[in-house]
C-alpha cells in the first residue's frame, strides 16, 4: 500500500526509466550508467584541448542533440539558464538545447549537462523543459530534477577523473582548481566533492529562513491581525510561538556510502553555534562539528557563501554552501 503511494508521487519520467531498465535497477544507478556510457562514447575520439562547452557540444551531438545560445535580446530577460526542446524522435536528431550565454561559464555548462541528462529518461520525448540554477525556496526540487543534476555531475565531472584530480585533498579549498579543470560551477563542484567522496560525506545549500509552516502562519498574522482577536491568544503570543529564522537545509548531496539515517531532512536547521552563522564573504571556514541530526558522529564541516544568491536573500544572512565529511 505504502509502496503504491510512493510510486504515485514519482515523476512519470523516473518511473519510465526504471521500467525501461527492467525494474531491477534503481533510478540513480540507471542515470549514472547512462552518463558513464556517454562519456565512454566521447572517449572513443581524440579530443585534446577542447573547452568545456565544446566538449558538451560534442556530447550533446552524440546524444542526438544540437546546442545553441539563446537569442541575446531574449536572454537578457530570460530567467532560465537552459531549455531543451525535443522533437519526439527516439533516435537521430532528437532536439535542441538552448543555453543562456549571459550566465557565468560554469553555470552554463552545468545547465547544459543537466538538459542532456533529461534525455536519459525514455519518456522525455516531447515538449520543453528548463532549468534555473538558483534554488527555489518554495519546495524541494523534485526527484527528476535531482536525478538530472546527478547525471549532469557525472557527465561534467566523471567520478574517477574527479577523484584523481582531487588527489586526496577533499576540501572546499580545492574548488577553484577543480572548477578550472572541469569547467563546472562552484556550487556543483562543492556538491561533487560530496557525491564523489570515497567515504561518508554530504554537501548542500542552506538558506536563512523559517520553516514553511511558520512562514505561512506569520504571513497570515500580518495580513489578518484581526482574526487573532477571536483566537485563544493575542497576536504577540501567536508570534512568539513562531520560531526565528535559522539556517535550514535546502539541497542535499551525499556520497555513495552516506547512511540514509544520517540524512538531514529538508527544513532541518543547523545549530546556532555552528560556523554556518559566522562565515564571512570570500572565506572558507572549517570546524569539527556533527551534522544536525547525527550528534554522535562528528566530522569536518566547511562552509562558504553560495556564489549565486537568490534575489530575496537576506543581506546579513546569505545562502551558505556546506561540505561535511565524517571524521
Amino acid at each position, binding site marked *: 500500500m505504502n509502496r503504491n503511494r510512493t510510486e504515485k508521487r514519482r515523476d512519470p519520467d523516473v518511473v519510465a526509466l526504471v521500467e525501461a531498465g527492467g525494474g531491477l535497477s534503481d533510478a540513480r544507478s540507471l542515470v549514472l550508467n547512462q552518463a558513464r556510457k556517454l562519456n565512454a562514447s566521447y572517449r*572513443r575520439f581524440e579530443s585534446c584541448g*577542447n573547452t568545456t562547452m565544446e566538449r558538451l557540444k560534442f556530447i550533446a551531438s552524440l546524444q542526438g542533440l544540437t546546442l545553441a545560445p539563446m537569442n541575446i535580446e531574449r536572454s537578457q530577460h530570460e530567467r532560465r539558464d537552459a531549455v531543451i526542446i525535443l522533437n519526439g524522435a527516439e533516435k*537521430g536528431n532528437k532536439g535542441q538545447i538552448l543555453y543562456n550565454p549571459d550566465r557565468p561559464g560554469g553555470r552554463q555548462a552545468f545547465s547544459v549537462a543537466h538538459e542532456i541528462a533529461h534525455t536519459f529518461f525514455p519518456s522525455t520525448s516531447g515538449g520543453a523543459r528548463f532549468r534555473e540554477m538558483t534554488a527555489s525556496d518554495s519546495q524541494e526540487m523534485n526527484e527528476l530534477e535531482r536525478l538530472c543534476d546527478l547525471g549532469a555531475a557525472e557527465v561534467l565531472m566523471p567520478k574517477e577523473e574527479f577523484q584523481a584530480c582531487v588527489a586526496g585533498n577533499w576540501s572546499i579549498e580545492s574548488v577553484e582548481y577543480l572548477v578550472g579543470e572541469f569547467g563546472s560551477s562552484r556550487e556543483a563542484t562543492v556538491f561533487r566533492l560530496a557525491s564523489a567522496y570515497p567515504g561518508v560525506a554530504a554537501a548542500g545549500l542552506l538558506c536563512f529562513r523559517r520553516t514553511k509552516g511558520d512562514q505561512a502562519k506569520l504571513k497570515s498574522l500580518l495580513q489578518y491581525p484581526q482574526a487573532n482577536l477571536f483566537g485563544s491568544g493575542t497576536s504577540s503570543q501567536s508570534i512568539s510561538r513562531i520560531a526565528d529564522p535559522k539556517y535550514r537545509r535546502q539541497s542535499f548531496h551525499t556520497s555513495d556510502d552516506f547512511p540514509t539515517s544520517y540524512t538531514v531532512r529538508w527544513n532541518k536547521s543547523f545549530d546556532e553555534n555552528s560556523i554556518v552563522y559566522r562565515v564571512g564573504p570570500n572565506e572558507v571556514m572549517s570546524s569539527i562539528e556533527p551534522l544536525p541530526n547525527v550528534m554522535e558522529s562528528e566530522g569536518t564541516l566547511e562552509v562558504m557563501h553560495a556564489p549565486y544568491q537568490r534575489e530575496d536573500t537576506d543581506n546579513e544572512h546569505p545562502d551558505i554552501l556546506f561540505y561535511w565529511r565524517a571524521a
Partner: protein
Amino acid sequence: MNDVMTLDLVRLGQTIRSLRLGKGWSLSELAEKCGISKAYISDLENGNAGKPNIQYVYSVATALEVTLDELLGESKPKPHRAERRKSEELPPGLLELQQELDLTTEDVEMLADMNFRGHRPRDKEGWRFLLEALRMVSQRPNQK
C-alpha cells in the same frame, strides 16, 4: 559497466560517404564545407583515420546536417531523399496514395519509415488508414 566502447570506423566511413553522395557532393565539396582536408575525409570514409578527432568528425556531421549520433550509425540515419528514390522503391500503395492526396515528400518519407507492430500496410487503403490514425493522434490534445 562496459566503459571501453569501440568505434566502428568502417561503418562511420560508409555513413559519411552515403550521406555525402546523397547530397551529390564530391570529396572536395564536403572538405570545403567543413573546413577539413580532402585527404582526412577520404581517410574517414575508408576507415583509415585511426582514432579520429571529434572536432573534425563533428564538422563533417554539421556539414552533412546530422548529429554525431546519426553519423556513427548508432541511430538510423534517414537516407537522403534523392538516394531513397534511386535505391529503394516506395512500399506498395504509398505512391498511389501520395498522388491521390497530393501528400508532401516529408509525409511520404515519414509513412514509409513506419511500422505497426512490426508490419507495414500493403496497399493504398492500409496507408490511408495509418495516415488518418496519425492525424487523429496529432490533433488530440495532450493528455496526462
